[in-house]
């Protein structure tokens, strides 16, 4: 694919174009590794648990650990199901991370209109998370 040569490109835009892909790719690779490890642990340690949970999902029955701290402890102890959940959380943080990165950059560049836009998107993502855990 052709790369666009644009001499008038701003410093802000240049930093975003260099760092956003690196950020996206890194988090994606990390989450993929965690997910593969989780599935491997599941297959070796508790394949029956996997099957039980699969059939529970078919009945829309979700059997999940309660708090995030609990989840991290379980994942650290090598509980396959919690490792999978951590992998999916990391994956979902990809957009959050890149919006947070743009937000910080716009603050540094004093581009306040875009500080406001990215702050709104961040607030929206966090509100969604909070409303989800209440409702």
């Amino acid at each position, binding site marked *: *694919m*052709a*790369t*666009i040569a*644009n001499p008038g*490109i701003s410093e802000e*835009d240049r930093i975003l*174009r*260099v760092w*956003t*892909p690196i950020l*996206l*790719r890194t988090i*994606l690779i990390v*989450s*993929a590794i965690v*997910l*593969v490890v*989780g*599935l491997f642990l*599941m297959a070796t340690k508790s*394949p*029956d648990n*996997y*099957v039980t*949970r*699969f059939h529970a*999902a*078919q*009945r*829309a029955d*979700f059997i*999940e650990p309660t708090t995030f701290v609990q989840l991290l402890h379980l994942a650290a102890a090598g509980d396959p*199901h919690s490792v*999978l*959940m951590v*992998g*999916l959380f990391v*994956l*979902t943080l*990809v*957009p*959050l991370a*890149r*919006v947070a990165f*743009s937000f910080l950059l716009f603050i540094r560049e004093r581009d306040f*209109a*875009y500080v406001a*836009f*990215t702050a*709104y*998107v961040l607030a*929206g*993502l966090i*509100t*969604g*998370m909070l*409303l*989800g855990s209440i*409702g």
Partner: protein
Amino acid sequence: MLEILGGLLGLAFAAGFVGSLSGLGGGVFIVPALVIAAHMPMVVAIGASLISVVATSAGASVAFVRDGWTNLKVAMVLECATVTGAVAGALLAGMIPPVVLEFLFALMMLQSAYFSLRKQGDELVPHGDEIARKLDLAGDIPDESGKTVHYEIVQLPAGAALMVLAGIMSGLLGIGSGALKVMAMDYFMHIPLKVSSATSNFMIGVTAGAGALVFLSRGNVSMSVSAPVALGVTAGALLGSRILPHANARVLRLVFTVILILIAVEMGWRAVKGI
């Protein structure tokens, strides 16, 4: 366990592959695949799909952002609209009867089918709106001969309104709503099609991410389904994007549109049976 895991990985791989080749994204294929083939309820399929859409958006965006096709400023402004819609949609998804979701899904698939068959061409405008100028949204791209073409942007509010709708559909149905997003940018805001596609792809990460966070924090995501689906869809989409430049795009689009209409009919029929 391995049969189930293998089946899910295969199903997701195929959905990601077809989604990437057709340019419609994995979501419109993985949701019906999980509902029809894996006998999953809509809510499980939507949660799994949202997470996999985050992954494919991130994967596909890397090259587009680096090479300058994505209009990052347009994306950041319009993401305010999609994130609002997506959170609302995801919260509503827990309350709306599955029958309604299946019916809406069929409708969105038909919109995608119409979108992929419609005549496409760029209509650039010479002057942008005042608001677009203030926000410095215009951009430059090369044309076929390599010459730089400048494009201006108009009708930001209309585009944003359609983005709210795209967000709601994404959160409700677990899809990226790429067809709606591209339509908003290409048709209303007069952004060149290739920039619209790249920007839509980039924005889909935040839209689906907002929905996925609601589902995850509500505990409405099945790990045993979502983990292999995320891996499979991503791998399928990667392969699809490698093959795409060598494929006959017109024939592919026609074949996939027919498949899409058939799945829409099946999903619509399920909704009717469920009433």
